[in-house]
């Protein structure tokens, strides 16, 4: 989403009787924009016109999300793998634990919850209703996370979906799907791979993928990481 609103407060532009795009400031020169870009900008214009938020607030939020990536989540997970006290704090007080590493969650951001994958329990996250995702830590979700195929199949056949990601969950492990439909966002703390004893946090972070923090796969083994 980009913010290109122009003067959204011009009263002469405030009529909503029709949906001619030229009515909305900032959109007249945007003939190349696709359907969703046009729609997003129309919504931005309306939010600003109605005084619900300012262009600055929108841009600040976009910038904040664009500044985050799975590498930020990987740093958090690597610390949790290396420091049992930190891991305990992350599971019990996620916002506090993230702030320890300099990740301050903005006010009004959805509550973050962290779940731990173990040998006996494997969590996988989906949002069947839309695309809820811990954007304030991991950035934007991958396109497949928002696809109808993932959102419908992850709840009905999570083991099949994980197989397609190259991850076979043994029958001895209980699979728990988390459908984040409401006010919580979930971060999966993946299992620390075998053979990683003595590795530094920086080395460990290289093994922690976006997909392992969604739960559709596990962290990479040191062997796989070296080969790639």
């Amino acid at each position, binding site marked *: 989403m980009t913010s290109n609103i122009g003067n959204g407060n011009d009263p002469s532009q405030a009529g909503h009787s029709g949906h001619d795009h030229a009515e909305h400031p900032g959109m007249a020169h945007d003939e190349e924009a696709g359907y969703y870009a046009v729609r997003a900008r129309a919504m931005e214009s309306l939010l600003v016109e109605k005084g619900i938020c300012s262009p600055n607030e929108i841009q600040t939020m976009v910038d904040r999300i664009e500044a985050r990536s799975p590498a930020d989540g990987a740093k958090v997970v690597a610390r949790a793998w290396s420091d049992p006290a930190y891991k305990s704090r992350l599971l019990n007080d996620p916002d506090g634990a993230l702030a320890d590493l300099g990740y301050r969650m903005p006010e009004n951001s959805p509550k973050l919850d962290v779940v731990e994958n173990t040998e006996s329990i494997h969590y996988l996250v989906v949002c*069947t209703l839309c695309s809820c995702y811990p954007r304030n830590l991991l950035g934007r979700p991958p396109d497949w996370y928002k696809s109808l195929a993932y959102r419908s199949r992850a*709840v009905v056949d999570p083991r099949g979906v994980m197989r397609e990601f190259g991850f076979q969950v043994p029958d001895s492990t*209980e*699979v728990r799907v988390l*459908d984040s439909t409401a006010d919580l966002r979930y971060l999966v703390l993946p299992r620390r791979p075998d053979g990683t004893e003595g590795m530094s946090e920086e080395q460990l972070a290289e093994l922690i993928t976006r997909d392992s923090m969604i739960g559709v796969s596990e962290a990479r083994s040191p062997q796989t990481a070296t080969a790639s």
Partner: protein
Amino acid sequence: MTLQEKNNEEDSPRFRPGDLVTVRVDNPGGHFRTPTYIQGQSGRIEKLCGIFPNPESLAYGGTGLPAQPLYRVEFPQSQVWSDYGGPAKDKIYVDVYQHWLEPLST
């Protein structure tokens, strides 16, 4: 905000972890966050996640009050999907607002 004011603005939690509940079947129209696949299903309260303004009201410029307790509710996969292919112990968890939940009638 005083405690009394707070109490007027949010519903008190009715359920505790371990309680058995049934998700109401409803279509209030407009925006709601209770997936239809879970409606009519019975499950177990895993935990209280917090108390949040009601999104069904917020979505249309309302206050969201009284705020609703939000629970993580656990359902056995094999109960939700009759043809579920995985082990019987697999579970699905959905976050459900209190006004969608009723005590399981036995």
